[in-house]
């Protein structure tokens, strides 16, 4: 059934429509926004007939089957019921919001959030995969956050939204862990498999953990005691949002979750204890608090909590009939609560206040709205002929049949009746305090009836209250049956949806609730006085306090470890690194391996001593920077000698030329940096750093020694054997660079180019002052370009270029290649800069180094792409031998083109860095001279 996939995604597409059409008129925007949800509702309803016959629609698209990830949807009775509620009430809310929102509010943004939320809710109820269900679950938390904080300029909207997100988000994490354990226990994340393995899950040792974690998710979402406090604070949202989130959708998601997993998890003692007792507590606490609210929406919010508790209690009872009653009450509550919220919104909108101490006697001003609200309120109270009465009767019946608390089971019906009394009392208050009870007090506006179409959604819902109340089986019979059997994952028990069951005990309980409630409302002044004795505790303040405490703790811990000192961080990183490496070195029994060592010779010892002295000298004189630079370059030279000694001529050549470039770079940099380093490390820090540095040096030296004295098992034989035949060159190092591992080299020259361009940008915007003298106060020498150097370097240039061309051309077969040739060329050009200055060079050497880098990388890439033309893979090289008169036999290889790219990039990068840095010292020189 492929159209099933489209059910949730049609609304997702619909989130774009309000954003696009927001600039049209509000009515057009509302109607266009409603189009896709309406189409979705039509699609859902088209499946209804089959579902009533017992068909189960499923559709899935595999994603990563090995770990049970798929996009899977199912449409059964329960999903059908919830989809109808979500889409139906959603459509009414869209219409209502068009009139509710003021011209200042961005209606496009509002609708987009609303539809996003609708999409997430549909995703939750239609999911056939645990992980996917959780994903949509979290999406509802996020999109409801956006909706609640829609009026983000108000503090209470921001705080309320944050609280809702924190509580439901934390519950979502618990749910995720629960679902993961559940999926791993069953061995499948498919909902179908889970529902079918109920007995297995209940027997498994993980069952208690799974139940607690999943219920945590459900209870936080459905605002069950003690997580109920977020719901009243979410009332800072615009009323259409409250009407949607707190009647049919958001808070019902937790109820849906319990119903969805009912066959898999319910019907155990643990389930009964947790779910029914939590439900009972929530039922009573919500109803009690609702009675004492002065805010119209606060009353409705707490009544919502109470009704959610009632449904939870029913789901916890574990009997099939209780489950049917729960489903029935889900429908009824959604209908009457949505209409009540909308009525409250109308009152707020047209009178400017929601405070029941101000709102009095509105009957005179808005009799029509008052009638609608009274019907819905009667339904909330459970007055006969209303839908609320039917499910409440079923609820009372079930409480009488409950025996799980043993001899204390009579508590349940008594407490249920008490909750009923509260419900009647606060419903009466909603009617009497608002519409009668004298005259309005200091209302900001003179109340009047709302616009015609703002009432339409309320009218539809109130009509449904009556229709369901009077013709229950005709209106919702099939839907209830299908949803109930889907919840039970089996046939639903037989029940009678009649409005008259004769004189029986539940009827008596309803009667007690009605009379008791009216009496309680009548004696409300005493109750309010009694309640006033208790200190008021605002859950918002407590919650904020906890959050503040946690964030203060967290920032204290952070400030302990993160003080912003890079010097300190690098110490910790290195210390940790040495612990990690040293601990594994201890497992090595002997330091030296089996491999025979090369005997020492005098030259090597001399060089080594020189190396050690210069390295130590660098450290000792590091605060006198020019001296440190000189000793550093000695180290570099000896390193290149070491490469030459140990059979790596390519490395020796590269190191040598890089050394020249590096020293020039550092000297140029030193021009702008202080010539000396102040002595500021405390002796303790010096000793500490010396200790760590020696430790790391010792560890690295040991690894190096242990490595070298053990036999080599290399993969290089492949390169040695195929260098000539496959790559067409005898210099294996170069063939590896340009052929075997050409892709690496391509990446590397790209990095080189990017680094050079980054440096170019950094230099371009640098605002450095020009030091007029060195640290000792001596002015710079005026003798800028010694003539002898100028003449010699100029005459050396062609020679140097010739050498680099030679090095480049022979690179494939003898030590050399693009890298080395590029560096040598750079050194030759830099020499000209040093000898003649930037101004002189600028007029004579017109090279754009940026273009050079680009063309270098371009040539290298093209030479790789070229092999595609001949049907080979990227960067496979081609070569052949040719004969020309006079020159004789010579070789042409595509690798040479690649090496040319390397050559150009290296020159471009090196020169871009050095020439620009050098230019910095001269371009401002004239300005500097004026100061001298």
């Amino acid at each position, binding site marked *: 059934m492929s159209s099933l996939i489209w059910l949730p995604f049609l609304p997702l597409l619909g989130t774009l429509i309000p954003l696009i059409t927001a600039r049209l008129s509000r009515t057009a925007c509302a109607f266009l926004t409603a189009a896709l949800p309406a189409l979705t509702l039509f699609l859902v309803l088209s499946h209804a007939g089959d579902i009533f016959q017992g068909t189960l629609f499923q559709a899935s698209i595999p994603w990563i089957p090995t770990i049970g990830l798929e996009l899977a949807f199912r449409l059964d009775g329960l999903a059908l019921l919830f989809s109808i509620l979500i889409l139906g009430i959603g459509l009414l809310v869209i219409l209502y919001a068009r009139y509710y929102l003021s011209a200042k509010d961005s209606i496009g943004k509002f609708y987009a959030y609303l539809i996003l939320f609708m999409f997430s809710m549909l995703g939750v109820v239609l999911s056939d995969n645990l992980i996917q269900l959780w994903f949509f679950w979290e999406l509802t938390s996020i999109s409801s956050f956006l909706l609640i904080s829609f009026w983000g300029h108000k503090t209470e909207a921001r705080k309320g939204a944050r609280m809702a997100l924190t509580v439901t988000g934390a519950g979502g994490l618990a749910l995720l862990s629960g679902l993961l354990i559940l999926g791993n226990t069953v061995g499948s994340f498919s909902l179908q498999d889970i529902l079918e393995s109920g007995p297995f899950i209940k027997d498994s040792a993980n069952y208690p953990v799974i139940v607690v974690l999943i219920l945590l998710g459900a209870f936080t979402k459905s605002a069950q005691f003690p997580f109920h406090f977020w719901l009243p604070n979410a009332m800072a949202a615009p009323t259409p949002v409250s009407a949607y989130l707190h009647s049919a959708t958001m808070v019902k998601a937790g109820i849906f979750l319990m119903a969805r997993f009912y066959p898999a998890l319910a019907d155990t003692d643990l389930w009964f204890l947790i779910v029914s007792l939590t439900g009972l507590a929530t039922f009573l606490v919500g109803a009690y608090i609702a009675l004492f609210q002065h805010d119209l929406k606060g009353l409705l919010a707490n009544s919502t909590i109470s009704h959610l508790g009632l449904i939870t209690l029913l789901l916890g009872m574990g009997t099939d009939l209780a489950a049917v009653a729960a489903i029935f009450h889900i429908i009824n509550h959604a209908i009457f609560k949505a209409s009540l919220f909308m009525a409250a919104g109308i009152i707020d909108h047209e009178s400017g206040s929601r405070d029941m101490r101000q709102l009095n006697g509105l009957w005179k001003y808005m009799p029509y709205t008052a009638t609608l609200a009274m019907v819905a309120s009667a339904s909330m109270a459970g007055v006969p002929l209303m839908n609320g009465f039917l499910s409440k009767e079923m609820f009372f019946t079930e409480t009488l049949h409950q025996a799980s608390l043993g001899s204390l089971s009579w508590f349940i019906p008594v407490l249920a009746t008490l909750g009923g009394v509260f419900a009647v009392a606060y419903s009466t208050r909603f009617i009497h305090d608002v519409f009668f009870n004298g005259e309005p007090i200091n209302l900001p506006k003179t109340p009047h009836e709302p616009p015609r179409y703002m009432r339409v959604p309320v009218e539809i819902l109130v009509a449904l209250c009556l229709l369901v109340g009077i013709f229950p089986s005709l209106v919702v019979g099939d839907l209830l049956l299908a949803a109930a059997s889907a919840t039970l994952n089996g046939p639903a028990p037989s029940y009678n949806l009649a409005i008259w069951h004769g004189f029986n005990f539940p009827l008596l309980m309803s009667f007690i609730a009605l009379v008791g409630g009216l009496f309680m409302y009548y004696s409300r002044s005493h109750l309010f006085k009694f309640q006033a004795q208790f200190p008021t505790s605002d859950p918002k303040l407590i919650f904020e306090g906890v959050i503040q405490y946690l964030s203060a703790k967290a920032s204290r811990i952070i400030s302990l470890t993160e003080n912003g000192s890079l010097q300190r961080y690098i110490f910790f990183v290195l210390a940790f690194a040495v612990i990690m490496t040293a601990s594994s070195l201890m497992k090595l029994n002997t330091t030296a391996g089996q491999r025979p060592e090369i005997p020492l010779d005098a030259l090597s010892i001399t060089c080594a001593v020189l190396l050690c002295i210069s390295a130590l000298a660098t450290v000792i004189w590091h605060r006198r920077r020019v001296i440190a630079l000189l000793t550093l370059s000695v180290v570099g030279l000896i390193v290149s000698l070491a490469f030459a000694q140990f059979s790596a001529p390519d490395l020796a050549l590269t190191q040598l030329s890089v050394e020249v470039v590096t020293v020039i770079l550092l000297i140029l940099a030193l021009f702008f940096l202080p010539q000396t380093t102040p002595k*500021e490390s405390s002796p303790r820090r010096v000793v500490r750093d010396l200790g760590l540095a020696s430790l790391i040096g010792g560890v690295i030296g040991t690894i190096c020694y242990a490595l070298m004295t053990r036999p080599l098992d290399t993969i290089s034989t492949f390169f040695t054997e195929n260098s000539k035949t496959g790559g067409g060159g005898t210099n*294996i190092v170069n063939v590896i660079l340009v052929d075997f591992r050409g892709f690496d080299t391509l990446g590397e020259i790209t990095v080189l180019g990017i680094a050079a361009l980054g440096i170019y940008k950094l230099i371009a915007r640098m605002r450095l002052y020009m030091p007029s003298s060195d640290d000792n106060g001596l002015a710079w020498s005026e003798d800028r370009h010694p003539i002898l150097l100028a003449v010699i370097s100029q005459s050396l240039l062609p020679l140097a270029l010739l050498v680099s061309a030679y090095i480049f051309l022979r690179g494939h077969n003898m030590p050399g290649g693009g890298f080395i040739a590029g*560096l040598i060329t750079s050194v030759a050009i830099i020499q000209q800069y040093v000898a003649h200055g930037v101004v002189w060079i600028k007029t004579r050497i017109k090279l754009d180094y940026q273009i050079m880098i680009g063309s270098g990388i371009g040539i290298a890439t093209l030479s790789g792409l070229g092999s595609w033309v001949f049907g080979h893979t990227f960067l496979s090289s081609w070569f052949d031998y040719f004969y020309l008169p006079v020159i004789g036999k010579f070789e042409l290889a595509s690798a040479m083109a690649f090496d040319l790219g390397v050559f150009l990039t290296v020159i471009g990068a090196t020169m871009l860095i050095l020439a620009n840095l050098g230019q910095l010292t001269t371009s401002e020189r004239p300005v500097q001279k004026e100061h001298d």
Partner: protein
Amino acid sequence: MEGLYAFCVGLLTACGIFLALRGRSFSVVIGLTLLSYAVNLFLFASGRLKLNAAAVLGQSEQYSDPLPQALVLTAIVIGFAMTAFAVILAMRARADLGNDHVDGTIPTQPNPTARKSGGSQ
């Protein structure tokens, strides 16, 4: 020979690390340069030390391992780019922050006598 080589690598590492732990950017750059010498020598040594055995076909009976050489060759060039980048960053940091300390601010325990002796030399 291997022992001497390993000692030099260890010493270069220690010197590099010590300088990298200093507070001023130029010392850190010098330290990083020393450290990259050490790293290059270390990587190169993983192909084992061989005398008179250049990795060029037809030059000798046995060849040194060409793979570490190729790796180190690119590492040297990239090392230069890194040093250059670090140095320019150091200059830029000094230009923007007014000092050349790696933390961006000079820590508050000045040692005036030491500052004077450093400057007069």
